[in-house]
């Protein structure tokens, strides 16, 4: 066995709203590219990052690409560990029903625990 075959727990921490900055789209691209490396991928949505998953995004009038349907494709790339912090949704008046894909809702305390269990944390 080569050492290169080692699988790491990687968490992508998403904390920015879509469209206002490029972070959300960049994170999604990195996750999709990274999926080819067969790592143990976790996607965490905190703070304004929860807005990335809001249903009913329609960018026609804004004139930029609506990348929200791409979150639905994550499953096909075996990215199935997707988490949203409960407190972040509550502050913003959102519930899991407002989101474009099914997620696991975690408390801040659970987020802390998950982060400590990761090998690598990548922030966007």
């Amino acid at each position, binding site marked *: 066995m080569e050492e290169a075959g080692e699988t790491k727990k990687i968490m992508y921490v998403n904390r920015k709203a879509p469209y206002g900055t490029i972070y959300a789209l960049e994170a999604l691209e990195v996750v999709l590219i990274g999926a080819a490396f067969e790592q143990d991928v976790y996607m965490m949505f905190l703070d304004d990052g929860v807005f990335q998953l809001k249903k009913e995004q329609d*960018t026609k*009038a804004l004139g930029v690409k609506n990348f929200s349907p791409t979150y639905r494709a994550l499953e096909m790339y075996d990215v199935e560990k997707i988490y949203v912090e409960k407190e972040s949704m509550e502050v913003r008046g959102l519930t899991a029903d407002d989101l474009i894909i099914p997620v696991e809702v975690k408390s801040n305390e659970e987020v802390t625990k998950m982060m400590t269990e990761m090998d690598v944390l990548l922030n966007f």
Partner: protein
Amino acid sequence: MLHTVNKSPFDRNSLERCMRTCDKGSAILLIEDGVYGGIKGSVIEDKVKGAMKDVKIYALEADLDSRGIKGRVIDGIQLVDYNGFVDLTVEYDKVQSWL
């Protein structure tokens, strides 16, 4: 005066600063990530409603649409398109952009 706010109120304090500082009779236009300030059920909804007693609040429709929150806007916030944005800049003598 017309005040524009383009940052999320959950990430920056620009909307709260704007609401605290703007003069009676002025208008606030929420654009870009600033439109999140107009969402119903959030922790700042009451502050926004309070500000609406003294100032008119507008939100740019294209930015609400793209973020999927057009159906969730606080009652009383008026939606404007890009032409409406231009009209507001003409209607008010000055523009203060809270970046």
